[in-house]
């Protein structure tokens, strides 16, 4: 038909001419000074990553005054769609990409690791549970604390809403996907924590970073829930926080963002958000990769 006869080309002064001119490469972009990087850095996806993203964004904007970081989205599920459609530069997920989300289309970067603590009330005598016990408690096979060495009280199992990344992480690690029998499903880590701290018979899972003196994080198979144990691979319950962008893209803004995230400054912010920072290659996490200790 009309073949390639008419194609628009870039020209800052006048409308299209038919000559072909390729746009200048972006190779020199990385050398740009901080003031030269400008634009909107749009992040879309998980809500539980909102806090860390907002925090990183705040610092990033301070460093690059011409950039505006905008974090939106209603959950991890939004991330691949938004990046695919080009409405967001970066997608946030608090879980791994699913197969139907075409993981091959994206560059996947793990920016942090979130430990999952099994939290019980401070007055609960139980301080240690085995993997098997946890599975049984959450699937309803064990119904009373005395069966696992506690007082005589019916166990109140608290979970997160079905599509939560935390829940997804927890259920896949303890192999109880779709089998858990919850007494309540709450929509945030904070809510679970509040619930557990006020209910003697409750048990729930929360972000490790959110553990404080109001609840007890039980040992799993005798291992304390700590950053170190996660890093050395002995504590198994954790999940990645990942960010995705279009495969092979070399956008100045995106490069600057990830450079910042993996910088010392970025790591500090991530740790302030009570997460475990990762290194640049952190594709998934191999527990031994030591460089994340900053």
């Amino acid at each position, binding site marked *: 038909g009309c073949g390639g006869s008419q194609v628009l080309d870039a020209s800052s002064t006048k409308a299209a001419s038919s000559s072909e001119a390729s746009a200048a490469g972006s190779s020199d972009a990385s050398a740009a000074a901080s003031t030269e990087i400008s634009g909107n850095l749009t992040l879309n996806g998980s809500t539980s990553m909102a806090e860390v993203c907002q925090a990183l964004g705040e610092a990033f904007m301070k460093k690059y005054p011409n950039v505006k970081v905008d974090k939106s989205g209603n*959950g991890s599920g939004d991330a691949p769609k938004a990046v695919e459609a080009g409405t967001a530069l970066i997608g946030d997920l608090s879980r791994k990409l699913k197969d139907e989300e075409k993981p091959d289309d994206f560059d996947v970067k793990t920016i942090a690791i979130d430990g999952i603590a099994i939290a019980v009330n401070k007055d609960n005598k139980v301080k240690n549970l085995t993997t098997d016990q946890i599975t049984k408690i959450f699937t309803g096979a064990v119904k009373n604390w005395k069966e696992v060495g506690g007082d005589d009280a019916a166990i109140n199992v608290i979970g997160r809403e079905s599509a939560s990344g935390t829940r997804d992480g927890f259920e896949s690690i303890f192999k109880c996907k779709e089998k858990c029998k919850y007494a*309540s499903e709450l929509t945030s880590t904070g809510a679970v924590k509040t619930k557990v701290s006020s209910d003697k018979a409750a048990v729930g899972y929360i972000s490790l970073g959110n553990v404080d003196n109001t609840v007890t994080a039980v040992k799993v198979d005798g291992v304390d829930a700590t950053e170190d144990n996660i890093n050395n691979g002995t504590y198994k319950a954790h999940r990645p926080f990942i960010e995705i962008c279009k495969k092979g893209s070399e956008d100045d803004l995106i490069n600057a963002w990830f450079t910042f995230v993996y910088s010392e400054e970025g790591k500090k912010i991530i740790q302030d958000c009570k997460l475990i920072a990762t290194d640049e290659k952190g594709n998934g996490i191999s527990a031994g990769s030591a460089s994340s200790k900053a």
Partner: protein
Amino acid sequence: MENRLTDAQRDRRKAQKTRIVRILAIVLGVVSAASFFFPYITFVFKKQVYSVSALQLLTVRGMRVAGPKLTGIVSIPVLTRIAVLAGVVLALAGVVLMLLKKAAPAGACYILSALTPLIVLISTSDIQSAVTQLNVTQMSVRYLAPFLLVLLLGVVCAVLALWTMGPERLAQSVFLVCACVSIGSVVIITIYVIVSGAPAIAEIGLGNFLFGETWAAGSNQFGILPMILSSIAATAGAILLGVPVGILTAVFLSETARPAVTKIVHPAVELLAGIPSVIYGFFGMLVIVPFIKQCGEFFHWNTQGDSLLAAILILAVMVLPTIVNVSETALRAVPVSYREASMALGATPVMTIFKVTIPAARSGVLSGVILGVGRAIGETMAVIMVAGNVANMPKLLGSVRFLTTGIALELSYSSGLHRQALFAIGLVLFVFIMLVDVLFTYISRKGVQMDAE
């Protein structure tokens, strides 16, 4: 004679004015059509600027864009082309129709032409996704003066065109267009709810969907019976608690209270109606839920506070103002003559209230109750904070999930059939509300009939 009722000279003066307006409408219409041929939009990729006229959007194949690894041609979306074509044609049609003195269709053409930039605005963003295919991540679009001119001139021309038929017709058209927008939104939302909800129901099967007892998104089980029953139970409970208190409060306000007392209680009820539902949820979460839990510990109930009961209590408070307000209006609308007649027969004020006033206001009171049902079924945020949200069959002290909260909890994470199933819940909810509304209309109409007899 200046005062003649039929005056040829006056008609002539009017015709002259009309002619000027018509010429203006034609000239501006031509300008508007011409705007399509000037730089219309600017795309900026990586400091590369493409200024494109509408004509080029229509005719060229695409834009050559060089990415870091790939170079390719980004084609112009079909919708953009259609919009531009329609815009030019409609603007010219408007001009021609004006020349033929057909003002009404000309106005319509102009207005439609003015809408085309909006379609361009929506569809050009598709270019962005095409661009991401080439890994050029960021693109910005700027809309230039001609683009805005088309938008503006179209409207102005339409106004001028209709003006030639007189200010009355012009105003009527403006009002009509607005009415169409409002009605359009109702129609669209109805269609949308049905269209987006139906596929999931078709796939899951109506029976499985409505009467399935398990909701497990991971294993593709989408049965919403627990949610339906919970919604019904919570609504019934809230109505059971809210109605007697509500109606009697209405009676208090309209019949027995001294004006000074009414002046305090009435604003209090209005305030209750205005409190955002999140605050009710917040209050329930911090006061009612712990209270139920403590009662549970005390009486050895098996409950942890988040429960159907908590939702019922919150909803009862939330429907209270609706019932009070509507019932009060209905009671006040009962003619004084009924009350007088009853009193003149020797009935006491209280007897009059219960035997004459309330029965006379019953259709209004019932409307209030039904509106309350509507509010209770549709409430989301307050109950999400107190009900525990597990898709169990309803138990008074157990955790439950409602139709509304089912949607709100999972929409953000869902995809595929799961998301469609959530839309299907929306459809079910919509049907419920329709039923309530039809009932409401039926009852209020019947009330009117009863009063008219």
